């Protein structure tokens, strides 16, 4: 009975979504305030119904209601309750419901935090988001009802995929979806601006904090996914260029271009059309990501849920949203007046170049991701694109991007003086090169060139960023007071760029200097590896709530002192009879020691993988810094108009004496 309520609640949510999209958009076109006033209540009611539905699904999982097919396929009485909870989004239907729930969360957030928006504009934004919601609710009701009953009712469930039984996977999907779906807000703002034909720059200012928030979530979501893959898959890798990873990385690349382009549109009234296109593109890529992950068209270790008919539905949705917005764009965009002028040597130019580079980077990833699908669809054979392709093309695209980043932060808006810029940059460049080369030569014996290139790039980004702060305060008497006046956006940019640099260091050193061995070991064996001794002390049987495991206990010794004791497990999840590896990791600021049990061999020995991964933590540390930078920018006072006015008055007062 309660499951049917959940289903019915989704139908009600669809009804609300229809009201939420039709009336406000019509109202905005006709100037009918009554119609427009329906936007907020409809969005809030939709949220209520979606939440009820989601709550019922959670409840069904928690009480082990195996009469529901989705619960029976993804849960088990032995599954710990926290994983029964996260199993809600462990497969297709539930993750789709999560998608819709998150969309409605973003929508009501817009209704609550956008009091300053003109009513007609807000109505359009909410309306467009309602349209997206209609598409996904229809998709869900027609192809993927999570509340479908199963008969006969199984005695026990088929268990959650063991790969997903991990703390990282409890939070990774919701955060990633917050990012994906968050771009629907930027999309809503862009389409609302196109619909109204008011392509002035106010829409850019309004949508900036929202876009930044979505970008922050996506950044954290991707980093979490990478971290999870690192410790859970037991291969010591942190990025595989797997189609599902690419699916989240493409919107991130365009999202990054978008937040920079929005800044230019907001501050300098330029790139208006380009920014709109990027907003549409970011959301289209989020939809494409959903399609790739959820349709089962890709050969991927991640494709948990697979069903081709669903793929066609999502593809149709994608075609409607992208096609529709591009047609609208084609009609409206030519009428936009181009805004501020700028010279070749200006921050605008570098922002534009970087925007294009992000687009090119996205296209290369897109090519590698969907080319095999196209070839297969055309019956031209089966092929795959190897990770070396992505590595080979990505680095050369990032190189000019990094150079432009350093130039961009130091160049003024509108125009700059070339000789002055050169004078500033020369010292920074020499310093970066000198320090980078010294570090490379002192610390690394092999792959020196690549290591040096990465470190110099990171130093270039950090020094130019810090120098841009110095430029702002160097002529001020009271440096501390001057630093306090500088906007949070600026500090946000600083922190995010330094985060990027930290990430580059992590990626470079980990890729160039990680070492690993695959070795046969039995109890008592000692292996010398990377200046450490690994001593396999014991192998013992362990059992968990829904698995049996063998645990290896390994002492890591360096210079005759014990560094750490690693414990790695090889688990067999009993319900699905599926083996899983739990790696033993000693995490450190400058290196990780990583051990994973392979497989049992004859005469009581096991195959074991050992890794020494220097600076791998810096990759995720960099991502966290980028997210913190984004957060600082969101918290910038300029997005709160009243406070902003006050600030201008105080600044004027200070300036007068």
């Amino acid at each position: 009975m309660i499951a049917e309520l959940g289903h019915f609640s989704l139908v009600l949510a669809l009804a609300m979504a229809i009201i939420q999209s039709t009336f406000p958009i019509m109202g905005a076109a006709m100037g009918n305030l009554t119609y427009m006033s329906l936007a907020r209540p409809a969005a809030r009611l939709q949220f209520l119904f979606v939440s009820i539905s989601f709550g019922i699904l959670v409840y069904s999982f928690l009480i082990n209601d195996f009469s529901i097919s989705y619960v029976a396929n993804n849960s088990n009485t032995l599954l710990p309750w926290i994983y029964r909870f996260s199993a809600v989004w462990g497969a297709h239907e539930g993750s789709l419901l999560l998608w819709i729930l998150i969309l409605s969360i973003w929508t009501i957030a817009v209704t609550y935090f956008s009091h300053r928006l003109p009513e007609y504009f807000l109505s359009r934004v909410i309306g467009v988001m309602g349209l997206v919601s209609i598409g996904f609710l229809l998709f869900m009701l027609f192809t993927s009802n999570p509340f479908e009953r199963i008969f006969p009712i199984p005695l026990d469930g088929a268990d959650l995929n063991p790969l997903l039984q991990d703390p990282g996977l409890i939070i990774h999907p919701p955060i990633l979806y917050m990012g994906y779906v968050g771009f629907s807000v930027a999309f809503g703002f862009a389409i609302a601006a196109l619909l109204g034909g008011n392509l002035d720059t106010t829409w850019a200012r309004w949508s900036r904090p929202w876009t930044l928030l979505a970008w922050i979530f996506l950044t954290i979501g991707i980093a979490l996914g990478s971290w999870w893959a690192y410790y859970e898959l037991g291969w010591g890798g942190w990025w595989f260029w797997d189609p599902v990873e690419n699916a989240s990385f493409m919107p991130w690349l365009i999202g990054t271009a978008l937040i920079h382009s929005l800044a230019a549109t907001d501050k300098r009234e330029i790139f208006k059309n380009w920014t709109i296109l990027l907003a549409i593109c970011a959301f289209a890529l989020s939809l494409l990501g959903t399609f790739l992950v959820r349709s089962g068209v890709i050969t991927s270790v991640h494709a948990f849920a697979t069903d081709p008919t669903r793929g066609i539905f999502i593809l149709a949705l994608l075609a409607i949203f992208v096609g529709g917005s591009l047609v609208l764009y084609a009609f409206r965009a030519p009428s936009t007046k181009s805004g501020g002028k700028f010279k070749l040597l200006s921050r605008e130019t570098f922002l534009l170049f970087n925007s294009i580079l992000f687009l090119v980077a996205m296209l290369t990833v897109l090519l590698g991701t969907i080319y095999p699908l196209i070839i297969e669809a055309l019956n031209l054979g089966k092929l795959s694109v190897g990770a070396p392709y992505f590595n080979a093309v990505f680095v050369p695209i990032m190189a000019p991007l990094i150079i432009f980043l350093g130039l961009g932060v130091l160049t003024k808006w509108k125009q700059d003086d070339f000789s002055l810029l050169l004078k500033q940059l020369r010292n920074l460049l020499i310093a970066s090169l000198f320090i980078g080369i010294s570090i490379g030569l002192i610390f690394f014996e092999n792959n020196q060139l690549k290591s040096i290139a990465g470190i110099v790039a990171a130093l270039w980004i950090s020094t130019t960023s810090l120098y841009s702060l110095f430029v702002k305060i160097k002529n001020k008497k009271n440096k501390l007071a001057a630093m306090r006046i500088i906007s949070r956006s600026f500090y946000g940019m600083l922190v995010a760029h330094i985060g990027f640099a930290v990430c580059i260091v992590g990626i470079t050193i980990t890729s160039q200097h990680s070492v690993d061995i695959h070795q046969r070991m039995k109890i008592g064996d000692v292996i010398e590896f990377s200046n450490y001794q690994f001593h396999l002390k014991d192998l013992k049987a362990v059992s968990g709530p829904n698995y049996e495991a063998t645990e290896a206990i390994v002492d890591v010794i360096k210079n005759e002192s014990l560094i750490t004791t690693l414990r790695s497990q090889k688990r067999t999840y009993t319900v699905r009879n599926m083996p899983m590896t739990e790696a033993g990791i000693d995490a450190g600021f400058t290196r990780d020691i990583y051990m994973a049990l392979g497989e049992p061999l004859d005469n009581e020995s096991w195959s074991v993988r050992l890794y020494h991964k220097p600076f791998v933590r810096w990759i995720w540390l960099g991502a966290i810094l980028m997210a913190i930078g984004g957060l600082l920018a969101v918290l910038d006072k300029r997005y709160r108009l009243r406070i902003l006015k006050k600030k201008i008055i105080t600044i004027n007062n200070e300036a007068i004496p």
Partner: protein
Amino acid sequence: MTSRKKRILIVSFILIGISIAATLILTAFEENLMYFYSPTEIANGEAPKVRAFRIGGLVLTNSVKRNPNDLKVTFVLTDTVNEIKVIYDGILPDLFREGQGIVANGKMKSDNIFVADEVLAKHDENYMPPEVAKALEDAGALNPYQENKVAK
């Protein structure tokens, strides 16, 4: 500099950049395409001799042999019509089992020996890599995955 000249300069910068990028991308792309061949296609001599490619099939029961002192392992992959011997040095994935469908990347060593750099098995005991399912279907074998499902 006039705005016209400036625009030409920017556009040419972008064009040059994009053409360099396109060349780089397409070269790297061409080099890293991995085609898939089934044991039957290899037996027919369709697979490349030098270039790396992917192979897929079922691991033949009782064909997995390990070296006693290191991690070298050999096994036979089959699409039920033709067989091919695979040599691999390293740790096999968690779901590698006899009778299981797997995919391997590597090169041919001689006419029917394949040296794998990487062996992939999917993280689901019922899951058949699509390439393997297709290869079995082409070879006319009943898909054991389907059979399994029906029996359940």
